[in-house]
């Protein structure tokens, strides 16, 4: 027997028989286990719920952004069918609906064949409050009142000359629809305050072909998307009534009749420059010719940005849709969104803004629809 064991035996004998080492009973152990299980399960459940909520939040935010983009794209698409854009209308054109109190976006269709002073159709966008309805999400919803979108479609790309008759027929058919106005919801997660902001580009006009539109969305629990400050920093969408220029320059014998020294067709300057052309439906195309190359910078459809009231860019009262630039396309070695130093200058040339330069000659074009060069026609 080792010395250590003997000493333990001595301690054991010396301890009174009723005295036991402190220990847990079975019940205590079970209760402890149950408490531990409950605590751990609760923590796991909380973590799981948090994870699920996070996942759902991301999904809902993504849907919000998606809805925002689609709503703007839809309005933009529809505006291309319009002749003019307004921000007011006397009455809500859908039966039984009150005129929303906030800002309105009114798309005005082509003249009614029966009465040229009246548009053939109006599509009106406004904002209605959701209240506590569970039918809608967010604080407000964007509503649209007008004929079905499909009824307003227009032929978009210019068709070859041989198809002009077909295009005319399509236009006539387009004007013959008998669809009723209905109210529908475009987006239902609009922000609580000022979700829709609309401004005519030329604020001296009652109607314009260009508006600056901002749409702000929000969940009931979340912040505005996009952040409100972005409006001040020029974050907006340009909506353009684009139906006017249905004129196909390639199909009009009055314009491309002469040929240059290389045998290319070029504008007949005796007929085309600065002459408004009208088709049978009342659409007008204005044409402007620029002699290039020469010195200086031209601005087409532009205005003084420091004018009061403020002019935001294109000036619609003098819109020129078809612009003849007397030079070959390749002569303009720089073709970009805006002049160097301007915001988004190096972006691609677009209908909103196009800056052309051959080094010494610069042309800044706003709202240009068709650019005609000696050697080709560019439809923006």
């Amino acid at each position: 027997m080792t010395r250590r064991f003997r000493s333990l035996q001595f301690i054991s004998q010396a301890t009174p028989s009723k005295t036991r080492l402190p220990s847990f009973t079975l019940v205590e152990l079970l209760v402890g286990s149950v408490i531990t299980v409950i605590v751990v399960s609760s923590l796991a459940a909380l973590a799981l719920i948090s994870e699920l909520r996070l996942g759902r939040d991301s999904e809902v935010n993504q849907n919000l952004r998606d809805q925002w983009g689609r709503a703007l794209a839809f309005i933009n698409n529809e505006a291309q069918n319009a002749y003019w854009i307004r921000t007011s209308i006397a009455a809500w054109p859908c039966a039984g609906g009150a005129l929303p109190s906030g800002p309105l976006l009114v798309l005005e269709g082509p003249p009614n064949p029966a009465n040229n002073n009246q548009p053939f159709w109006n599509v009106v966008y406004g904002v209605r409050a959701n209240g506590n309805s569970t039918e809608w999400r967010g604080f407000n919803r964007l509503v649209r009142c007008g004929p079905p979108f499909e009824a307003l479609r227009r032929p978009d790309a210019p068709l070859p000359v041989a198809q002009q008759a077909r295009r005319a027929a399509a236009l006539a058919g387009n004007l013959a629809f008998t669809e009723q106005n209905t109210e529908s919801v475009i987006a239902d997660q609009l922000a609580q305050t000022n979700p829709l902001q609309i401004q005519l580009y030329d604020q001296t006009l009652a109607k314009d072909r260009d508006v600056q539109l901002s749409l702000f969305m929000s969940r009931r629990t979340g912040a505005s998307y996009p952040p409100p400050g972005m409006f001040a920093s020029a974050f907006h969408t340009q909506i353009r009534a684009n139906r006017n220029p249905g004129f196909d320059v390639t199909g009009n014998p009055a314009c491309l009749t002469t040929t240059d020294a290389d045998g290319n067709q070029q504008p007949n300057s005796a007929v085309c420059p600065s002459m408004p052309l009208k088709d049978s439906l009342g659409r007008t195309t204005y044409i402007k010719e620029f002699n290039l190359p020469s010195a200086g910078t031209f601005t087409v459809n532009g205005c003084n940005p420091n004018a009061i009231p403020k002019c935001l860019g294109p000036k619609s009262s003098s819109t020129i849709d078809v612009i003849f630039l007397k030079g070959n396309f390749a002569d303009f070695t720089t073709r970009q969104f805006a002049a160097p130093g301007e915001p988004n200058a190096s972006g691609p040339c677009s209908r909103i803004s196009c800056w052309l330069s051959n080094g010494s000659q610069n042309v800044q074009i706003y709202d240009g629809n068709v650019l005609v060069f000696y050697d080709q026609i560019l439809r923006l």
Partner: protein
Amino acid sequence: MIEVLLVSAVILGGSSLALRSMFLFSEQRKLRTAAVELSGYLQVARNVANAANGRCRIALTQSNGGIFSVDPTFTDPDNVCLPGTLPPDVRLGGLAGSRNLKAATLPGGGNYPLTFSPEGSIRAGATVLLSSSDVPNGAWCVDVQAPLGTVRLGWQPSGGTCNYAIEQ
């Protein structure tokens, strides 16, 4: 021994209640999974119509909990959603792992087809209700709104209307 049995009985009783709740939760999640899958499929159909500048019609077949696929009977000359042009059909029951899933399209409760236009819009919206006999307290709603073709998810409590605010 009695103490152990008593404690075990209490734990088992509690667990059975928890399991029942977990089963219901799991079945509800399966319904939601089906709703999310369907939502994604409809958005793909919309995008295809938009991108190909044509029309796309999706129909429901009552089998395997509801099968959504391109409509083979759609004879529109602008139809761009022919069989094989979209991802595989959405078989909701199999995708969600739910044996008792049932899909019905409102209005009418039948197999109301959804037609997306070249602009990606839809002229007549519809709501698809996804229910299961394992989830007696309600159904998930997948709502396709006209004219944008926006897809929303909502929960319809038993005997109530679809609540879309639940997903915000």
